[in-house]
């Protein structure tokens, strides 16, 4: 049962990420990316990582992609160009590079960790308690530093998007 859920979620993720890069409408791209992130959240959930599934939905789909939609509607972007249109050489080389990268990563992953077919223990480790302990314990500096980074990013974004009156 869980295997089928994983396979459906993985298929949805692949299909809708293809839609996200192929379709000509930026709105459709963003909305299909929302579906990709929902599928990935489902995968995190069946791996027992509840916290990651929740922040994937709340932060990624709920905040980051809404920001994308906001900018697309603010700039009033209509139809974009077709995938690789008018550049056969670039399209061919890009396809070769992307396929090569994917194949290389799969090869590396299966060679480094070759035990295909093992059953993984899930659950219990992904609840908020151990993650909160780690964030405010051994990763405290990084956790505080990322809030500094976010403040810097917000100030920078406001400065960049400001009108020069």
């Amino acid at each position, binding site marked *: 049962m869980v295997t089928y859920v994983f396979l459906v979620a993985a298929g949805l993720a692949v299909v809708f990420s293809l839609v996200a890069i192929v379709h000509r409408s930026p709105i459709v791209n963003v909305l299909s990316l929302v579906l990709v992130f929902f599928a990935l959240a489902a995968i995190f959930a069946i791996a027992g990582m509840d916290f990651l599934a929740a922040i994937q939905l709340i932060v990624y789909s709920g905040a980051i992609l809404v920001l994308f939609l906001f900018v697309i509607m603010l700039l009033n972007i209509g139809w974009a160009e077709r995938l690789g249109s008018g550049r056969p050489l670039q399209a061919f080389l890009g396809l070769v590079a992307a396929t090569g990268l994917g194949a290389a990563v799969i090869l590396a992953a299966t060679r480094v960790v070759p035990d295909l077919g093992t059953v993984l223990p899930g659950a219990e480790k992904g609840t908020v308690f151990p993650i909160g302990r780690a964030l405010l314990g051994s990763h405290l500096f990084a956790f505080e530093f990322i809030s500094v980074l976010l403040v810097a990013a917000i100030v*920078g974004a406001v400065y960049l998007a400001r009108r020069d009156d």
Partner: protein
Amino acid sequence: MEPLQLIPVPHTWLLALSATLLAIGTLGVLLRRNAITIFLSLEIMLNAGNLAFVAFALKLSAEPGGLAAAVAGQVFVFFVIGVAAAEAAVGLALFIALHRLKETIDVDRVNILRW
């Protein structure tokens, strides 16, 4: 401690899905010329990286004493999402500034630094 729940999904499947998503994201970055869609492809690649972190966290949690590594993998995913949020804010502000300057976000038409 609750008993461990067994999930019948090998971590290599997760890694294969991660590699596929990485390839799709690379394809989008290389072949699209609309800046927003290039940015979305970057988000797909970041999520492929997150999925790899999750796969290795699951792999390490199966080994004795791997609980710290499993938690660390999820903490890294948390940080990646935080950095992605910062990156999205700055990048989209850049696109707004660019659109004000050039009336387009087609990356081929942003060549004022090209000799």
